[in-house]
């Protein structure tokens, strides 16, 4: 059973890697798959707060927007390389995360949720009204696509050529998104199985006991917020250079809700669940978009169905699909080793 699940996982991965190269590939499908991967990154980033630390964040999309606008503005004004923009956008997201988090992370429960919600709506309002900076509701069109310039390598090898590859179409973005998902996944699983991840889970399970174990609640919540918002900004930077157009509408509350639904559907605190939740909800959205008009229903029914489906899922699976927390911990070599030691002791 476990072996079969593993095989299936690798088959899926191989299929995902091969798909863009196949003759029957479809641009629309590729686009949706890239979108799914953007949401996977968002969901993994958000998961840190409600999933690991038990903090309800209703304004995650604000940091996604900050990342996207950081990238968009740096691109149109300074023509900066994407590879330079990524760390800047992540840092900017994390910076705003700390600025908002520091005064609010002492708040409990819903108060924190409300503040994050208010903040993200203020971000949208700022993006809409500061026309001198953001062009307001018109958005920023004409953002340059990503390009990979490795002329330095050519120079190093003594080749007098310009080695520059500009991303065109969905395929290069598809692979880049895969790399991004893989990297964030790696970071998240490693953090989950570490001193930092354990401290976060302790805060989620029982803040008072966590403090008694020596965890500085405030510091670790701020770290969680910075990492989470940084990842949100990373997804935003990618979005800006992929869609090549950003506007304040793209960062409204609905998006925060969507990402939260992905995390909850997957199972709070479960990284794999965040991935599955993103795939399901984006795919569902696309299916509804295509299927409902064919049934003769108006386009608005899509959101109606979406809302209803969330209600039904919460009704019958309030804990999500995967309820296990600290999954990567159980798969680490040290723990496998310990399991063997304990088993040996039992038989002895």
């Amino acid at each position: 059973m476990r072996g079969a699940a593993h095989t299936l996982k690798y088959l899926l991965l191989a299929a995902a890697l091969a798909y863009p190269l196949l003759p029957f590939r479809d641009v629309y499908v590729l686009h949706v798959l890239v979108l799914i991967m953007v949401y996977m990154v968002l969901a993994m980033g958000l998961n840190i707060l409600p999933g690991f630390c038990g903090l309800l964040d209703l304004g995650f999309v604000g940091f996604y927007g900050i990342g996207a606008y950081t990238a968009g503005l740096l691109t149109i004004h300074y023509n900066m390389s994407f590879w330079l923009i990524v760390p800047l956008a992540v840092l900017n997201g994390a910076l705003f995360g700390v600025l908002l988090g520091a005064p609010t992370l002492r708040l409990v429960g819903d108060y924190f949720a409300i503040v994050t919600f208010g903040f993200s709506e203020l971000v949208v309002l700022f993006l809409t009204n500061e026309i001198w900076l953001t062009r307001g509701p018109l958005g920023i069109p004409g953002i340059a696509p990503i390009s990979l310039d490795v002329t330095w390598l050519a120079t190093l090898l003594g080749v007098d050529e310009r080695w520059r590859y500009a991303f065109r179409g969905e395929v290069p973005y598809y692979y880049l998104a895969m790399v991004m998902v893989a990297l964030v996944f790696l970071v998240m699983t490693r953090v989950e199985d570490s001193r930092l991840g354990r401290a976060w889970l302790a805060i989620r399970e029982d803040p008072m006991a966590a403090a008694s174990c020596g965890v500085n609640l405030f510091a670790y919540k701020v770290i969680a917020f910075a990492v989470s918002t940084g990842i949100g900004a990373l997804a935003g930077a990618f979005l800006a250079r992929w869609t090549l157009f950003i506007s304040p509408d793209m960062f409204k509350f609905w998006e925060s809700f969507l990402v939260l639904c992905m995390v909850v559907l997957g199972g709070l605190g479960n990284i794999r669940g965040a991935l599955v939740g993103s795939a399901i909800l984006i795919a569902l959205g696309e299916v509804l978009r295509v299927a409902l008009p064919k049934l003769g229903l108006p386009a608005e029914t899509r959101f109606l169905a979406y809302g209803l489906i969330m209600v039904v899922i919460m009704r019958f699976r309030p804990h999500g699909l995967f309820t296990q927390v600290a999954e990567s911990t159980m798969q680490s070599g040290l723990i496998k080793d310990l399991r063997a030691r304990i088993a040996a002791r039992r038989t002895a």
Partner: protein
Amino acid sequence: MDAILTVDGVSKRFGGLMALSDVSFAVERGAITGLIGPNGAGKTTMFNCVAGIYTPTDGRILFADGVGEPLNVAGRKPERMTALGVARTFQNIRLFSALTVLDNVRIARHCRTSANFFGSVLRTPSQRAEERAIIDAAMENLDFVGLGETALSPAASLSYGDQRRLEIARALATDPRLILLDEPAAGMNPRETEALVDLIHAILGRGVTVVLIEHDMKLVMRICKRLVVLDHGIKIADGSPQEVRANPDVIEAYLGKGAAHA
């Protein structure tokens, strides 16, 4: 007396309620001290003041780690008290119940370890060595309380008595010099209580000073070297179990007015 902890005139007020008024006592290093008194006497409030959950309204709490000068630690944050060497368990068990037994104890190594975000992501050699050491220390403490074999089970799956022992293991994993046990025998059957007595003596054997709150008077009288009795937030007696047992104020507090003369 070599005091590891000296509570000096501590008061704690919640709104109009004086939960503790001007309480003073000392805890002898390397001994078991019992903190007793009727329900609502302020025992857990006293623990919370020492452990840093509450800041006393008034008074000093001196902690002497045996090396440097005694420090006034009143009002220090809980995580700093843990780092100083004061660990505790809770009256109503507070485990991280979604996690494994091992992870409950591993978290307690937090204050003795230092890996940060970057070390964890990059899996640096020092981070990996630290992780191994954390598991070893956690297992050592779990074996100490007899839960080593359950390390990879969910904490919530343990029996009630084992959950209490797990809390003790978690507290011990912070490498304390002083451990505060809040009703460790509550809800235990006689066999479990006997094992607990052995465990408490073993803790003492590791050089950790023990203060416990307990309602089981037989247990308290048997294992404590000194007792401090609180009633309505006031210290009414302090001394050896024999002295305390003979103190009319204590009998009155427990059995009601007039009982001492009956």
